[in-house]
């Protein structure tokens, strides 16, 4: 019996050893790696059948007419609100029967009032949103049933539902009072910030998928640039001395690394921007006036490890994507030591990050393709909404109970739109 016991133990040990070696080998030779965030391996979940969304029919002055006035809204980085609407209209999760809906969507394009330069003006957005909510609360009973707790809104602007581009003003305004019970789908994400409320879903900014696909280069082109960045370091028009824009972080990057041959950084607008990103190992994604930027999306699509320099930022789909394992996070105070930080990352870690980035479901999750494809950002939003189900019973208000104060907020917001 003794002998059999030892034989059994020996076989167990050998099996364990062989399987670990095999697993390690497998990880090494495969070009991609599975991604699983804090919510589990959810990037490839299919939301169809897990939730039902009812889309309110708003008059076209809230959506179509605005888009007709300025079709640039379809290509700028806030286009997610428009494409989300279009996707939901034709998606299998849409239901025409509001009684069976789990979530309600209000298609109002608040980020489509553009200046001649193409930047959205948020000054009328709070009034527009208010007016839309007044409409749905008077025409349908579902808003008043929960005061918006099972409704979601897409607010992709700089600071989300705070509806301002200046951070101090946005903080002063805070999130629009009427939206405080609703779920917000926004690009802005920063921990402990007024404009990010509990339960919000962060999405990536819109980046045109066809444009990026058109600039792909063969995978065997060797990555020879160590760190790559193109963009402003000083916003001379609005912050000539520096220190305000990007909290001084971009200026610090420039001053510390402008003569470092490893850092290919400049303010030029090269035509080979996308191709260059594919030839770089690291791509800097520092904050600008807001912490998020389309550079993150571009870095993920082109397989360049994003170096995120934005304190307390909350990245898109943070519960589905383990960003800590994929990107490199650098505190703003550590920017002068950026080269030390990046060169001291062990090569195996870098290769692992590249394998995670090469995962096609990762790249799909960052995009808003037309028409929608499985695993893309639309589906991740729906997955996020599905993970919040079932709704807690306490969101349903008792008859006569009122939580929201319809006259709260700055006086200017109360004017009808």
């Amino acid at each position, binding site marked *: 019996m003794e002998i059999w016991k030892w034989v059994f133990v020996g076989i167990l040990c050998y099996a364990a050893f062989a399987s670990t070696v095999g697993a390690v080998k497998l990880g090494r030779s495969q070009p991609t790696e599975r991604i699983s965030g804090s919510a589990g391996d959810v990037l490839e979940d299919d939301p169809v059948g897990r939730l039902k969304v009812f889309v309110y029919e708003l008059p076209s002055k809230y959506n179509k007419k605005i888009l007709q006035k300025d079709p640039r809204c379809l290509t700028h980085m806030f286009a997610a609100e428009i494409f989300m609407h279009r996707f939901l209209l034709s998606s299998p999760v849409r239901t025409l029967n509001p009684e069976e809906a789990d979530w309600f969507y209000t298609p109002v394009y608040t980020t489509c009032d553009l*200046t001649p330069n193409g930047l959205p003006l948020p000054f009328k957005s709070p009034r527009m949103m208010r007016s839309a909510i007044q409409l749905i609360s008077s025409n349908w009973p579902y808003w008043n049933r929960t005061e918006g707790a099972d409704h979601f809104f897409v607010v992709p602007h700089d600071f989300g539902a705070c509806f301002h581009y200046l951070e101090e003003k946005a903080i002063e305004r805070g999130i629009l009072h009427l939206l405080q019970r609703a779920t917000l789908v926004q690009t802005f994400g920063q921990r402990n910030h007024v404009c990010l409320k509990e339960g919000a879903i962060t999405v990536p900014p819109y980046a045109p998928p066809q444009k990026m696909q058109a600039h792909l280069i063969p995978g065997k082109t060797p990555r020879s640039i160590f760190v790559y960045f193109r963009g402003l370091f000083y916003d001379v028009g609005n912050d000539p001395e520096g*220190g305000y824009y990007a909290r001084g972080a971009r200026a610090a990057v420039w001053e510390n690394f402008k003569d470092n041959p490893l850092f290919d950084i400049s303010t030029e607008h090269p035509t080979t921007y996308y191709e260059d990103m594919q030839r770089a190992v690291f791509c800097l994604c520092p904050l600008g006036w807001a912490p998020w930027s389309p550079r993150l999306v571009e870095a993920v699509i082109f397989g360049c490890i994003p170096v995120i320099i934005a304190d307390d930022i909350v990245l898109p789909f943070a519960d589905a994507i383990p960003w800590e394992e994929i990107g490199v996070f650098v505190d703003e105070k550590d*920017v002068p030591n950026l080269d030390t930080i990046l*060169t001291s990352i062990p090569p195996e870690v870098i290769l692992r990050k590249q394998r995670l980035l090469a995962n096609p479901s990762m790249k799909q999750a960052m995009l808003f393709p037309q028409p929608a494809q499985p695993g893309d950002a639309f589906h991740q939003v729906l997955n996020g909404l599905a993970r919040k189900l079932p709704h807690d019973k306490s969101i349903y208000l008792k008859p006569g109970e009122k939580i929201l104060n319809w006259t709260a907020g*700055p006086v200017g917001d109360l004017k009808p739109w």
Partner: protein
Amino acid sequence: MKLSALQQSYMNRRSTSFRGSAPLDSSAESAIKSPAAIFWLLLHGVCCLISLVLGFRFSRLVFLFLFSTSTSNLYSTPFRQLTSTADLANSLNVPSNPVVNPELPALNKTLSSRVIVGRHGIRIRPWPHPNPTEVMRAHQIIERVQREQRIQFGVKSPRTVIAVTPTYVRTFQMLHLTGVMHSLMLVPYDVVWIVVEAGGVSNETASIIAKSGVKTIHVEFNQRMPNSWERRHKLEAKMRLRALRVVREQKLDGIVMFADDSNMHSMDLFDEIQNVKWFGAVSIGILAHSGGADESSLATVEEVEKRPSMPIQGPACNASNKLAGWHTFNSLPYKGKNAIYIDDRATVLPQKLEWAGFVVNSRLLWKGAEDKPDWIKDLDSVGEDIESPLSLLKDTSIVEPLGSCGRQVLLWWLRVEARSDSKFPPGWIIDPPLEITVPSKRTPWPDVPPELPSTEKAVINIPEHTVKQTKTRSSRSKPRGKRKHEAKVVDTQISTRHSGQN
């Protein structure tokens, strides 16, 4: 309060330039007229005047010493002062900015995060320049990443590259051979370099190829290289056959390519030839140039228009990407004007099809391999006078065109040689060192070169000295055959100057 007023004006200015329209929701509380505000305004004005006088924004210094928190800020502010003298126009906001920083926590009442809105210092480390150790580490990281890329996207099981180079000792040998050597050293696969030398194995060649770091086989060929191009091409063909026999004898396994020592190879060539199965052909760009002779005699205007691009030799494919024929070199325009002897200053022409454009799987050359296809002739049955490796084939249609069916030019053919009577120092080492140092006529500095601590030669400061020295040396320098040609020229220069001065 003054802060809000100033900030408002700043915001207004910013928003107007940023958005192009007045902010509609400006909720400016106007409490500007309080005495504290007036005091601050006066302080502003005083600071501005002082800054104008001093030439930099001294208010930053004041606030720095009052409120400085970290040493890194210490370095950032003087730095910023140096570069922002142009911003005196904005000096209205100057004193407010350093004030904003320490006062800001009061503004953000609702915030509990460690991220503070507002103006921050620009952190610059004391020595903002690259650290060499880190640069080395970064390059190692890049190298590792590229190796991984090659493993994933490159050739799956790379075969050894067997490069065959015929060479002989001459002035430009070092130039050409170094070029080929460096290309082979960069090849990411195993390389075996077979160097066949005409005129026997020499120390010159051996010392050059020893520096390569790749496995080399130095083969001797006991015939001297002739002086005419035609006979040289024939001899090179024989030398290459000799190398192929070495491949056969040693049963080297890999892909044989012909790297002539004056050709230029692109790195993509070595990646592309890994795709060959048995016998492949690549396109060569022919750089047939005239050695500085008059271009006008070579081509009339129409001819130049007809030949706008570089001639290419290589496989020609039809529409279905199958081998249909060959692009060869058209030597008609050069009839009668080409170089016959190696030191002619006319155009050197390639043969119809150069050896360099072909790659051969080495197993084709082995004796008695089982899976050898039947269209290959045995090396011994082919004569010594073959023009191109196509003569090794019974059927030339099996040749695989490489480089997207011959559309990519992967190497360039060029023949440049010095005059046959040109001399060069053996091993390109000047030993003993040159004795004459002469100040150049065209240096911008006055001719006072520093005293050099050397024993035998006299460093010449004054022209008269120079003249005297050279007079004595020139009689001795002539018998030394090792002197460079230049030395003689220099001597004549000196003597003419001397005659001028006299």
